[in-house]
């Protein structure tokens, strides 16, 4: 169990909900390169709502479940502090203000996206951003590079979805149960 002394108790009632909203808004607005580094800074270092161990464990749950990690994290921590209303407050913090910013950007894009220099600017960034996804893939793949089974399932997913453009649902329903079953069989 976590050490009671180094955890700050959440404030009660509406104050606590506001705290959650503000904390997750701060995290989601600052989050480039994975909001998670910022989450640690905001939740562990700054507010002391969790200790390191708590944080790591909650993060591993959030990475295990489908969905954006930051959304899952907001739901879990919000629930722990204030139940359903805590989750909703934290979730609102994650997307309310960024959504307004994005709608504004969407508006600007449809008005001005065709202007030559903006078009050039975005073309450059989108090419770089595609490269950045390769980086994420390579980093994730590092620990698996000597595991033939991982390579097999990774390649199968890449060929199915990336190259042949099969529907994701079909590919997942084919590969995931097989891959999980083999992992289960090998660990027992």
């Amino acid at each position: 169990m976590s050490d009671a002394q180094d955890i700050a108790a959440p404030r009660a009632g509406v104050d606590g909900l506001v705290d959650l909203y503000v904390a997750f808004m701060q995290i989601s607005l600052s989050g480039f390169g994975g909001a998670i580094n910022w989450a640690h800074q905001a939740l562990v270092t700054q507010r002391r709502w969790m200790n390191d161990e708590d944080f790591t464990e909650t993060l591993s749950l959030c990475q295990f479940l489908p969905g954006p990690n930051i959304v899952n994290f907001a739901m879990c921590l919000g629930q722990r502090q204030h139940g359903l209303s805590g989750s909703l407050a934290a979730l609102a913090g994650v997307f309310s203000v960024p959504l307004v910013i994005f709608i504004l950007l969407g508006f600007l894009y449809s008005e001005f996206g065709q202007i030559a220099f903006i078009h050039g600017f975005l073309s450059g960034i989108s090419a770089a951003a595609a490269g950045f996804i390769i980086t994420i893939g390579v980093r994730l793949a590092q620990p698996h590079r000597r595991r033939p089974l991982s390579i097999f399932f990774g390649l199968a997913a890449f060929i199915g979805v990336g190259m042949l453009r099969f529907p994701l649902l079909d590919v997942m329903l084919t590969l995931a149960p097989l891959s999980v079953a083999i992992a289960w069989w090998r660990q027992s």
Partner: protein
Amino acid sequence: MNQGAILLQIATRFALLSLLSFGGVNVVLPDAHRFVVDTQHWLTDQQFADFFAIAQAAPGPNFLIFALIGWQVAGMLGAITATLAIVVPAGTMAFVVGGLWHRFRNAPWRRATQTGLAPVTIGLVFSSALVLSGAADHDWLTFAVTVVTAVVALGTKLNPLWLFAAAGLLGIVTMS
């Protein structure tokens, strides 16, 4: 197609993607591309690539690329519908499972699930890279930008925003 039917399609399709996004939204981008560009023709390849660029570079979580898609397809309501469709199903699951977590965090099936899903996720991230590069790279220069960014980001701890800024400036200089 009328607005209501489009919103319903956005909601159901993106909700499904929400539940399939093991490892985050980067793994469902190829399927989103397949649906909105190839099947529905709601967006062009270039628009999809542009939205991805904006979502990566703007302040806010990357999953809001779905808000931009929703905005393009059906305006304000589209943006809100798309965002809720991505957030609510996965969020509900996190809420339910989060409460039970302590009961099964050491369960063997949980470890097996995590181990089994990881390589599939990695294959899907590379699928995203391929689809996005296909949408973003239309000549040797943009292709070179993709490759150089990947190499530099792998080799250094440079904040990717600098790479994006450099690539954006290069784009302005060469393409306008």
